[in-house]
């Protein structure tokens, strides 16, 4: 029962984090500077998910520079800059990762 309670409680807090600022923030009262800073939210949040998943191993230590994930993410990064295309970026990273781990 306590596990169900934990999950419901966690779900509620999780939901409130999504609803909270939508409900409370009044964009008209937001100054220009804040709006400009908020443009950087994807660039500020997503790398904190990307970097540990690529550069750290399961024990939380840095991986080698020639790790397949590191090489593949750099290839995807380069292709992303050139193509500016979401699906090409994902596929280029995944395919280069598979080529490195299966063929090389």
């Amino acid at each position, binding site marked *: 029962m306590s596990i169900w309670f934990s*999950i419901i409680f966690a779900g509620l807090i999780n939901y409130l984090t999504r609803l*909270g*600022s*939508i409900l409370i923030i009044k964009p008209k009262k937001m100054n220009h500077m804040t709006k400009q800073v908020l443009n950087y939210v994807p660039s500020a*949040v997503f790398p904190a998910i990307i*970097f540990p998943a690529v550069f750290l191993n399961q024990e*939380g230590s840095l991986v080698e520079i020639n790790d397949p994930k590191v090489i593949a993410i750099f290839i995807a990064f380069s292709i992303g800059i050139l193509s500016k295309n979401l699906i090409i970026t994902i596929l280029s990273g995944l395919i280069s990762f598979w080529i490195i781990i299966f063929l090389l």
Partner: protein
Amino acid sequence: MYSKSKTFSKGAIDVLPLMIPVVPFGIIFGAIGIELGFGPYLTYATSIIIFSGASQIVMLQLLSAGASSLVAITSSSVISTRHLLYGAVVSQHLNQLSIYWKIVLSYLLTDQAFAVSNEYFKKNANNIFKHYHLVGSGFTLWFIWQLTTVIGIVLGSIVPDELGLTFTIPLTFLALLVNFLRNINHLVVITLSGISSLIFFDAPFKSYIIISSIIALVGAAILIKLKK
């Protein structure tokens, strides 16, 4: 001309490429829930109640490892705090909507739906039905996540470990940044956030995501000030 159905469909189509990682991740989550001994109902319930992959996995892993409910809830909640930032961004576009709409849209505000719908909002500010884009992207993601969780629960680990499909998660988040990669300011903020996340990775309750995000946003504010 904009319409509700066209805007909804656009949201669903825009989020589709991001299903490449969501499908294996959902299946892996379903299988992990069963492997950790939570049973089908509890495992599935997390997908509908929490509806946030990273928070769900951390929650079940901590509980199965014997952590107290308080630690599990805190960690799962701290991981979710990034949604506060997403909400602040989209609130600029959803302000005119009724509270009922805000209640529904908030449930659908995941990383992927935020990324694609926020881009749409910026480019289509004059579409009075623009919130249907978030319904389309959010519902598609919700549906696929529920479906794949059930597949994982029923069929188990049908995703071979050797394929390394968990790598698609960082890849997707990188792909969500493609529009910013040619901008030097964004590159600085991306690097700042990434390096901070490696430095603060061991911070308690998985708080490295929100800590790094705040450091990077402070960096962004400094860059904007310097440019003035």
